[in-house]
């Protein structure tokens, strides 16, 4: 029943590649943003909060269209990158940027939750014993919020796998180059004669999502146990 063409396999591999790259790219920035929001007070914090969470509520197609206008040939970022010979639109890198933008709030939320659960006294102790803020960050905050980081990364990875609305606009729908699983399914679903192909790929999407969420659960449980021990 499961019939996958070579193009479908490419779509699956591309989806994994895009989701992984987007998550890895977003991690340092997400960690820094979460740290800013938990441990720092500054002007415009509310604004930053709104900005970070905006992709959560904006329709992905709006994000895609903004990215297209921004990174496109006539966009200001696009023109700047063009001078360096970098082109994003209609490449797999555009899919990475779309996924990273849409998944970013999920990552920050989880990392924040992890950081907020850290006992503040530990941080103050480390500071009073002479550790610099950066040492505290690496040796206290990072290990103690690892659970939130892992949870956030797996959630973001899962969200990136499912990214459709922003991706189809900035990356196009080019088989073998930018066609991820959701885009391939969309293509099949728009043509009634390929229902079986659509369903096969849907099944693959379900299996991958279940696997990722399963890993997410196991990881967070293990860490919970470690913390209890």
């Amino acid at each position, binding site marked *: 029943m499961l019939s996958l063409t070579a193009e479908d396999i490419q779509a699956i591999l591309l989806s994994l590649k895009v989701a992984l790259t987007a998550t890895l790219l977003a991690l340092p920035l997400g960690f820094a943003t979460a740290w800013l929001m938990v441990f720092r007070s500054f002007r415009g914090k509310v604004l930053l909060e709104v900005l970070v969470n905006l992709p959560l509520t904006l329709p992905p197609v709006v994000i895609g269209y903004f990215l297209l206008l921004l990174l496109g*040939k*006539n966009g200001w970022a696009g023109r700047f990158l063009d001078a360096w010979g970098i082109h994003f639109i209609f490449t797999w890198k555009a899919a990475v940027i779309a996924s990273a933008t849409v998944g970013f709030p999920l990552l920050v939320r989880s990392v924040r939750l992890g950081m907020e659960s850290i006992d503040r006294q530990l941080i103050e102790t480390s500071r009073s014993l002479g550790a610099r803020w950066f040492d505290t960050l690496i040796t206290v905050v990072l290990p103690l919020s690892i659970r939130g980081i892992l949870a956030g990364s797996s959630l973001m990875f899962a969200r990136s796998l499912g990214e459709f609305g922003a991706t189809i606009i900035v990356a196009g729908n080019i088989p073998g180059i930018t*066609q991820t699983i959701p885009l391939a399914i969309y293509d099949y*679903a*728009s*043509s*009634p004669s390929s229902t079986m192909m659509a369903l096969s790929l849907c099944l693959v999407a379900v299996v991958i999502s279940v696997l990722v969420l399963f890993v997410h659960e196991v990881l967070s449980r293990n860490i919970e146990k470690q913390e209890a021990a």
Partner: protein
Amino acid sequence: MLQSIRRSAILLLLFLLTSAPAMAGELNLSVAASMKEVINELTGNYEKTHPGITFVKNFGASGALAGQIENGAPADLFIAANSEWMDYLKGKNLVDRKSKKTFAYNTLVFAGSTGKKVTSMRDLVKLDKIAIGSPKSVPAGEYATTAIRNAGLEQQVQGKLVMAKDVRECLMYAELGEVDGSFVYRTDALQGKKAKLLFTVPQKLYPRVVYPMALTVKAATNREAQSFHAYLQGSEAKSVLKKYGFVLK
């Protein structure tokens, strides 16, 4: 408090249940994306002279529309951008054979806002990115792929093609300059602001672009659907089609 919540929930449920059946005088149209302006103008005129009739219009790629109709989406009239998807529904006995008529014809062109000189199919080789509709579901993309194949350029343009979800998205990419040009219908190219018609694809390279229309089987006995179907074959419809650049014969 709790009771009033429950009461309003029941009211809401009743409202949702009773509003589901289609209202009298409501016609559901499923129309190929490239016919959007024509159908909007025609239904606007029709509503003025036929008070009580309202239209629910669903525009999209013909393949997607056929799939929706096959799966039971409400549709009284289907206008496709090729015969394939009309025949597909005919084969499933979902459209009324007797009401199948040719609504209009169109031609395939290449449009773009590129500074490069593009005047024939052979010039496509010089370009970096070319948008076509996704050939699996967008007829314009299918015609474009056929034309490219018959021109013997399949190998050369591979890797340059960007598949768009419908013909209007092709035009949008060309307008923004994200692609050098797009294969679109002549009628779409005429709507372009920055994207200009660069050349007409020779008719010998692809089958003629036909827009068949038909009533669905369940609408075949509906008077209002029949009368709108007749209106679409009348002189007013013809002049609107002509205005937007469609070919009638």
